[in-house]
């Protein structure tokens, strides 16, 4: 109980230090800008055809796509690369809190920031669509347009047809939000675990490497590498969907009952499980971690 109180205090201290951190504000602004840029395609259709939108649709259509998740995650890395704090200031905090509480504090910090950032993207996308939205749990006319018009043949919108047929906005929002959150959590866990295991540079490099796999391990690349003809796209999709962490976070790359892609629950379990395993690994390493700090003024 005492550990938990101290862990929350450590997290509070970490978040408090963000108040004067320009990178934090830069990430907030970039997150909002990114949201505006990524949702604009959906909003433009709604504007051009004078159709309404379900309040969460801008977020759903935007973050059902892997590229959007990747860009948003890269922005989040701007903030998370500052954690865990292992400088002199962090070491002095750790001395008072104890290693276990301190690490738990870092995990709480990462959870709070990641969740907060996902909520920021959600709120931002809701505000951008304000004026022509409804909150009912039914798809809007814009969704119908996206799914069953020539616009729906755009690969980025191909998912809409699946979604509109199989689910409703609220469950879709919940699933996409959880996938986005878990992918970002995986990146944060990699960053945290490998900073403790090896060094901050290794942590950041590996988190970026996971992002890079998102760019590399795509169905198109597999088609290219394996010289697959178009009719074998299914196999390239399978490889990408199972091998790439980003594709696990991409809604459209899942099994909705008629193929061998991973199920949503499988991907959530894999992403969440990997994060938990990495955090457990850091907890083990933390017991023997050597604090190497040289003092001076902290960069908050």
């Amino acid at each position: 109980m005492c550990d938990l109180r101290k862990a929350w205090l450590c997290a509070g201290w970490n978040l408090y230090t963000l108040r004067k951190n320009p990178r934090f504000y830069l990430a907030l602004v970039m997150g909002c800008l990114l949201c505006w840029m990524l949702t604009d395609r959906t909003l433009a259709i709604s504007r051009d055809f004078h159709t309404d939108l379900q309040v969460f649709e801008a977020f759903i259509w935007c973050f059902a796509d892997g590229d959007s998740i990747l860009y948003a995650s890269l922005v989040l890395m701007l903030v998370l690369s500052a954690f865990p704090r292992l400088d002199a200031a962090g070491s002095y905090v750790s001395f008072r809190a104890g290693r276990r509480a301190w690490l738990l504090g870092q995990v709480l910090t990462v959870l709070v920031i990641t969740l907060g950032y996902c909520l920021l993207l959600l709120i931002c996308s809701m505000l951008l669509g304000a004026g022509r939205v409804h909150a009912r749990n039914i798809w809007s006319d814009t969704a119908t347009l996206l799914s069953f018009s020539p616009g729906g043949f755009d690969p980025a919108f191909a998912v809409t047809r699946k979604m509109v047929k199989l689910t409703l906005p609220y469950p879709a929002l919940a699933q996409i939000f959880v996938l986005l959150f878990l992918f970002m959590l995986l990146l944060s866990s990699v960053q945290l675990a490998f900073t403790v295991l090896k060094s901050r540079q290794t942590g950041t490099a590996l988190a970026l490497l996971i992002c890079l796999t998102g760019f590399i391990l795509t169905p198109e690349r597999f088609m290219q590498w394996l010289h697959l003809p178009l009719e074998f796209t299914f196999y390239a999709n399978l490889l990408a969907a199972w091998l790439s962490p980003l594709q696990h976070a991409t809604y459209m790359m899942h099994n909705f009952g008629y193929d061998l892609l991973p199920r949503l629950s499988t991907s959530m379990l894999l992403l969440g499980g990997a994060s938990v395993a990495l955090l457990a690994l850091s907890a083990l390493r933390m017991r023997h971690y050597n604090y190497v700090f040289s003092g001076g003024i902290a960069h908050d």
Partner: protein
Amino acid sequence: MTDRNTTPAIQVEGIRMRFGADTVIKDITCTWEAGKIHGIVGRNGSGKTVLMKCICGFLRPTRGQARVFGRTIGKDVDFAPDTGMLIEAPGFLPHETGMNNLLWLARLSGLKGRERVRTCIEMVGLDPNLKKGVGKYSMGMRRRLGIAQALLDDPRLLILDEPTNGLDKQGVRDVHALLTCLKAQGKTVLLASHNPLDISGLCDSVREMDGGVMSAAYKDITI
């Protein structure tokens, strides 16, 4: 159950510390009694700070162990119990006042209210109402604030690495007076300095470190 009166404040048993191929501390064994001021002198890079970090629990020695008040660091406890320390310099948050910086640390120690923080800041000769951020403090002021944070929990043991570094003559006298006063209250102090003259008058025992090896106490009034 350990006896508070007879248990040495610090016991170091065969501590060796390596960073890669570099052996920074070479099998040091020694004991520091409670209720006294002990000094470690040695040139820069002689291993004083690393030894202090091992005693505090920041570094896990490659071999050997440190015990503080009978409790083994890294086994019984994560960090030295009932200890205040100033090693290198605490990385205070530069935009926050000294009071705010210490308030966060006090909360982590479970101290309620501002009174203890205020008292500690006053004990080191700083103004607790000073509104400027620590980033604008002089080096000496930051050092004093560092000592104040070490005193926050009213610890039985103080581990201070170069506590008078950057202080003017009056500052050095103030710190010496403070440490003498703490000794009179039964506290134990372990001091490190690269300047023997700086601490020899103050300490009950002084040991010298050179190249990761520690000498026998060359000044020890208990002998």
